């Protein structure tokens, strides 16, 4: 319960704070909260991979981009768009619909089933046998994304003169 409150607080402040770097630090707190929830749900590998990938790489990447796109303007632009009430109402409506759907469903109030006891070896076996094609496609996709991101962000040499 405490974890849930911490995660929601982290994510809410990630969306609500004024300073962009504070937002990213709150987001990191939210990521760690989600990773702790994964550990609570007995998904050890996913929780640790979440910390390693999201906190260790994605958060730092976002921080780098904030640093690179930061202009020390004397007047910071306002944080929320002018139609922020409409946006909040839409998001609250989405949450209301999802919560209604969850509470009306029958199979979601049972207790905790026994622990599955998943080892990393089983995950590795599944990756190599049953999920081999998605794994290879992932490798290809990550390579393409890496090269694409570098090409897009690098810019052309002529623009820099």
């Amino acid at each position: 319960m405490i974890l849930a409150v911490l995660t929601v607080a982290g994510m809410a402040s990630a969306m609500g704070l004024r300073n962009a770097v504070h937002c990213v630090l709150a987001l990191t707190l939210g990521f760690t909260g989600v990773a702790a929830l994964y550990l609570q749900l007995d998904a050890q590998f996913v929780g640790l991979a979440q910390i390693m990938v999201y906190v260790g790489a994605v958060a730092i990447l976002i921080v780098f981009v904030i640093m690179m796109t930061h202009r020390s303007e004397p007047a910071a632009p306002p944080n929320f768009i002018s139609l922020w009430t409409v946006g909040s109402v839409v998001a609250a409506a989405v949450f209301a619909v999802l919560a209604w759907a969850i509470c009306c469903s029958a199979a979601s109030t049972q207790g905790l089933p026994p622990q599955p006891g998943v080892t990393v070896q089983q995950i590795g076996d599944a990756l190599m046998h049953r999920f081999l094609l998605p794994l290879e496609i992932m490798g290809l996709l990550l390579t393409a994304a890496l090269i694409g991101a570098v090409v897009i962000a690098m810019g052309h040499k002529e623009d820099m003169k």
Partner: protein
Amino acid sequence: MIHLVQLAQQLDQVFVLAKHWLLGYVPAGVQPLCSAVLSVLSVILVFPLLFAIVTWIERKGLGRMQNRYGPNRVGPCGILQPIADGVKSLTKEDIVPITADHAVHFLAPVLLVSASFMDYAVLPIGRNMVIVNLNAGVLFFFAVGSLMELAVFMAGWSSRSKYTLLGAMRAIAQMISYEVPLVLASIVVIMQAGSLSTVAIVNRQATYTGIWPHWFVFTPWGFAGFVLFMIAATAESNRSPFDLPEGESEIIAGYYTEYSGFKFALFFMGEYIGMFATSGMAITLFLGGWSAPLSFLTWIPSYFWFFAKLLTLIAVFIWVRGTLPRLRMDQLMNLAWEFILPMTLLNIITAGVWYYMPTGSIRWFVCSCMVIVPCILLSRGLKQKKRFQVRTYHFTQ
């Protein structure tokens, strides 16, 4: 004779037995909590003490290597110097710049020290002496190690100073670049041991043929992996020759310029504790953890061997610091991405070949060639690429 063997085994397990005896005084409901608290307390007491001793060893060692005495005023041979340093850093005024972000400025050393101490949860310090035997122990170690980078950024950014921000950016770029070879160099061990659990990896290495142990460092891929892991670990802890982000002649103190007093001591301690943890992981992965080097020395307690190996690796770190010059930032990055990373990938292939070849001297020869020849070719090829040119400057718009 039997009494001696039993005495050796009891000496080996003395901390485990002491913990069980202490837990006997606690009601059964809170025993798991007390067991966890005792383990954590022992780590918190032992490793800062080791940190204090190592600061003294480092200053004396570096001094001797630089043809000067180290500290020799405080106590005989300067041995009370760590206490003097501790008193100094605790009594200094804690200056926070007025434009600094106070919350983040306060939290950065806390996060660094917490992340460094959490690394010890999966290191097996002796036989049956690991705090928690996670199934994905090595992954936990690297995941928590990546929290340290965020702490470095928080420190550098919150001080709102040019030097700190620049130092923090350089430090993070360096740490992320060397995290990839660090993880890849440990994958070789995970492949051979078949498990991510540190206890299982050490147990695989604790067997002997004749008098020689089965440590992974005594195989070609293990030796290459160990060297690459140590290079990456030196860069991860921002130590010389990779200490451009915090070199005093370069950037004052880099990302912890604006810290003083106790917070600076926390940063210092966090960095050294992180270095010990990475050395501990190198020992666990490659040097056989707590197992003795020769099979007739197993009567010496296992934690003694762990700390002996740890002190040896720390001495190697200090030696490298006193010997090699500092690398420039682009040289650092080139080394990581163009030399260390391909070598780790080739090392993984070599370990695969080792696993599938029949045992004998032929696989030693093949795997040694697979490791040494690309190393020589790559280093020669990379050296010839750099030619001196006229410098052109691109100014940002």
